[in-house]
């Protein structure tokens, strides 16, 4: 049963996770051109606004209402809640998580998506795609019960959302960016890649610092209980983040002969996304390894997505959230060590228990969410593309979305 202290801790975590909207907006805005800065702000603002309302009306019920096995069927409009109920804290806590999943997609679709179409896409993500899939792993946190929570080989573990929030966001971003196609000038006719540098790396860096600051709430808040474990989870989270920074720095030094700032910043996010699933289950050393691998994966994946898949992802959302989210999920099956940590009766990770069963559950989870995101994403983006068009005209893209879609300039200097 929840008490005052757990309400306070969960609300503080909620307030921190809300502020990630500012972090994501700054990262996207900093890594894209100044002629689209206002469009990025509006997409992030509307992501959260539409997400909050649709999650209250519909999404929350689908995700946490009494489930028919596939999705929740009650608690729409938070019906039946009265007095100072825990449900208020729980719904705002889950709302900011849904907002995070939706806003990941906007980064990959930056600089060429029609604003109206984006709002429709964001609505469907926060109202259907995210909540339904979320109910499969987190339903039992409220009135629901997801099938992934009852796998024979052990419940699928995704403590704070490496998969449920980040990977899902990442795979949806992948589909969106693929269907949208690259920005003009990204690839030459003979397929060579042209860099389209962001206009304000300090903004992007401030965004990463804000995300890191809020991630302590994202991970340690997911206990929804204020006990000694929140300190451990915060410590573990930080170890993975710093390891992601160090490994991406070393890799870029080796690959490019210089420490690359934007990749090292992505390394921090990779470490954070990677540890999110297992932050309550792995040891300090496990966290360091997860972070080191994430830092390497993100650098390789960004190059792979750009070169091999020919998908133009301006902020690396697919690599940071999709790929590292998946790695974080699978890593739980390898490094989970509850007994060694002294917080559980047995170690679930392969490296500690020698058993593949938890790893198997993690792979099932990864597969379920990957397929769900790619399929629903494909359907959603294709339908929106057919009915309304998803991409702005070439002329609009050249002039920038600020002037054309919002009749405004981000940095106005009086002439």
């Amino acid at each position, binding site marked *: 049963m929840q008490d005052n202290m757990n309400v306070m801790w969960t609300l503080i975590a909620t307030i921190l996770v809300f502020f990630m909207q500012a972090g994501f907006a700054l990262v996207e805005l900093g890594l894209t051109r100044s002629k689209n800065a206002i469009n990025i702000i509006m997409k992030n603002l509307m992501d959260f606004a539409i997400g909050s309302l649709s999650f209250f009306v519909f999404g929350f019920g689908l995700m946490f209402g009494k489930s028919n096995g596939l999705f929740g069927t009650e608690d729409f409009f938070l019906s039946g809640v009265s007095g100072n109920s825990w449900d208020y804290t729980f719904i705002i806590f889950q709302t900011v998580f849904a907002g995070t999943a939706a806003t990941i997609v906007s980064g990959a679709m930056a600089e060429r998506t029609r604003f109206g179409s984006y709002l429709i896409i964001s609505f469907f993500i926060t109202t259907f795609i995210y909540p339904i899939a979320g109910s499969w792993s987190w339903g039992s946190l409220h009135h629901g019960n997801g099938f992934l929570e009852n796998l024979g080989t052990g419940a699928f573990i995704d403590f704070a959302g490496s998969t449920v929030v980040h990977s899902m966001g990442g795979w949806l971003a992948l589909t969106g960016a693929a269907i949208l196609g690259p920005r003009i000038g990204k690839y030459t006719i003979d397929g060579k890649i042209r860099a389209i540098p962001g206009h304000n790396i300090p903004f992007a860096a401030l965004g990463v610092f804000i995300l890191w600051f809020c991630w302590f709430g994202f991970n340690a808040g997911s206990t929804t209980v204020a006990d000694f474990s929140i300190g451990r989870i915060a410590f573990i989270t930080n170890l993975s983040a710093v390891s992601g920074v160090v490994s991406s720095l070393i890799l870029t030094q080796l690959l490019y002969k210089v420490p690359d700032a934007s990749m090292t910043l992505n390394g921090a996010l990779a470490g954070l996304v990677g540890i999110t699933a297992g932050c309550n289950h792995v040891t300090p050393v496990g966290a360091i390894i997860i972070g080191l691998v994430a830092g390497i994966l993100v650098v390789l994946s960004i190059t792979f997505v750009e070169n091999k898949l020919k998908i133009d992802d301006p902020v690396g959302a697919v690599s940071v959230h999709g790929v590292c989210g998946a790695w974080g999920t699978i890593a739980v099956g390898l490094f989970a060590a509850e007994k060694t940590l002294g917080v559980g009766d047995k170690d679930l990770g392969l490296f500690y228990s020698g058993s593949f069963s938890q790893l198997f559950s993690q792979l099932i989870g990864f597969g379920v969410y990957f397929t769900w995101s790619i399929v629903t994403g494909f359907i959603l983006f294709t339908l929106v593309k057919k009915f309304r068009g998803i991409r702005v005209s070439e002329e609009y893209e*050249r*002039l920038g979305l600020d*002037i054309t879609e919002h*009749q*405004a*300039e981000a940095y*106005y200097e009086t*002439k």
Partner: protein
Amino acid sequence: MKLLIAYIQPDKLTPLRELLSKLEVFRYSISDGFGHSEEKGFFERYRGVELDVDLMKKIRLEIALNDEYVSKVVDAMLAGGKDGSLGDGKIFVLPIEETYRLSTGESGPVAIG
């Protein structure tokens, strides 16, 4: 020796630079500018108040050329203008009385480079 001053649309700079390198013209200077002409401006709105933006971002190009190169460059640019690869723009040709290269003190056509 002539000084070619050209105003072109910002996103046409890359095609123009490719055109110049084909003509083996490797020395030129550019700067940001704003132009006003018949070209329709942008309609902007700031907190509900209309804002007529009729100064269009342009790239201002300066290319010092020896006489024999002038017509070659101008004709190539006009061709680019016609086929739309260079968009709208204006070229002015002014006389240069003397040119100096700072590093070596050379002057005259050889200093144009």
